[in-house]
């Protein structure tokens, strides 16, 4: 739909640029400032509070593991790698460190806008996937409870597995909860699914 696409705007963002004093660093800063982004240059070591920046631009040639105060599996913000050497080890490290986009050196007067859009989009996508995977893993771990609830319903209602599953799903929908939560609730009832009915 027409209203969905918004021109990406980075106004008000804070960027940290991890790069030694150099013309490439100056060019990156100039490009970022044109986009309304506040820039802080850092070298050699990042501090913990830099994790709160909206984007990190880092030198993939000279930067190394020891400069980061957070572990590689924590990626607090979108990151852009500046690459001079294309040695596979360096590229691999940049990816592992969280680069969602890169720019080739020497840095000229263009490229950062596109890199920001790509890095932000891939960061958001990764964040969404990670949340979804965590959710699915959690639901997968509760499969035995779902099976238990279906078996209880089959016994109590004298029905097949398909009908019992539909019954469980109806309970979940009626309570606006997940199937797993509905199964837990059902399993917790002393008399199973028919507990309410029997009481009545």
């Amino acid at each position, binding site marked *: 739909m027409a209203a969905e*696409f918004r021109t990406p705007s980075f106004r008000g963002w804070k960027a940290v640029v991890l790069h030694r004093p150099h013309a490439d660093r100056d060019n990156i800063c100039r490009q970022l400032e044109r986009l309304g982004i506040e820039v802080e240059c850092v070298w050699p070591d990042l501090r913990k509070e830099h994790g709160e920046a909206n984007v990190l631009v880092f030198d993939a040639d000279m930067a190394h593991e020891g400069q980061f105060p957070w572990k590689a599996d924590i990626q607090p913000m979108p990151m852009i790698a500046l690459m001079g050497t294309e040695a596979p080890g360096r590229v691999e490290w940049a990816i592992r460190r969280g680069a969602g986009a890169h720019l080739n050196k020497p840095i000229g007067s*263009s490229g950062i806008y596109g890199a920001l859009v790509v890095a932000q989009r891939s960061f958001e996508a990764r964040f969404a996937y990670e949340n979804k995977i965590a959710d699915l893993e959690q639901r997968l771990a509760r499969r035995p409870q779902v099976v238990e609830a279906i078996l209880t319903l089959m016994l109590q209602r004298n029905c097949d597995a398909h009908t019992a599953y539909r019954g469980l799903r109806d309970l979940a929908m009626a309570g606006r909860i997940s199937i797993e939560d509905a199964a837990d609730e059902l399993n917790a009832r002393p008399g199973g699914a028919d507990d309410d009915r029997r009481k009545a």
Partner: protein
Amino acid sequence: MTRQEIPVGVLFSSVGPYAEIGREAREGARAAIDEINASGDFPFRFACVEADPQGEADRYAVLAERLMREEGCRHIIGCQTSWSRKEVLPVLERHQGLLWYTAPYEGFESHDRVLYTGACPNQNVVPLFQYAVPAFGNRAYLLGSNYIWGWEVNRIARELLGADGGCVLGERYIPIGDEQVAHLIEEIREKRPDFILNNLIGTSSYAFLRAYRALGQEDPFFLPSRCPVISCNLTEAELPVLGAAAEGVISTSTYFETLDTADNRAFLARMRLLRGADAQISAMFTGPYLAAWLLARAIAETGAAEPQGIIARLPDRPRPTPLGPVVIDRQTQHAHLTPHIGVVEGAASVRDRAHFRLVGTRPAPLAPDPYLVDYDPHAGFARAPSGAAGLDRETGPQLRLVT
């Protein structure tokens, strides 16, 4: 005393699909260079070194290379399509040259080797929509030639319309130079939009405007008063070739011949002496004309034609030109410009001369915002005739490129 001669590249297409505006641009650069050389105000003279890519995008880089490597040009005034500009960028980087790009364009670029003196989106499509949406509605049909200008301007248009609660009833592209427009007319007839945004260029645009005028004569719904064609790049340069088909088209530009200022009257009088009483002067002419003047001022001030010194010294302060002072923004290397809105009148008349009647302007120039950093498309459009976000709809605008 012989003055130092400084070669200046002039890179426009005088044949091909957009030859009308290319020739106009070349004339603008030539006129300014002649004036500068004749003025006696400068301790140098410009040698105008022309190259003609004939409308072929791939020829621009080749010719720019020749201008810089063989002809010794450090500056090129040229390129009209964004496609051709992007082709030339690597050449400029290689030779550390400077391109003076004077056409309106879609923004999202700020290259160190380019000075942008044409309007970017906050100075073209945004003010055009601030005028058109309150006046005609927010259901639009979007058209473009199949390259970045049309794609990106239409994308911005789509966002502006969506944020206003409006919609895009159709979005179609045809190749540059294609004159097959019957399917576009059919779709427009069926969809009945509030207006049409035309980002076609050159001969495609002429074919469309002719066919659309015929549609309006068949069905009054499609007359300009009810369902106009609006444009970010129709100028006086194309009115003669369009004839009656241009009647009622609404366009935005940072220059119209009808701007009623002392500077413009004097300028037009000089240009008509030079080009004949019937000559149409347009933004396609004044863009390169002003660029040449800015270049001359900058060289005079820095004492050298070296682009680096000019980029360092030129921005931020107004520099005089025959059409008033111009400011270049340091951060983006784009000009501060005043967008005007004009409607074509007199194109269907045998007595009148086709011209743009001004229907909207601004009291002061707008700072360039090529990445739309400071503009919120979701702020909506002011419906009141002179609302805060809207243009001043009173006629009688002043040509003040800069205050």
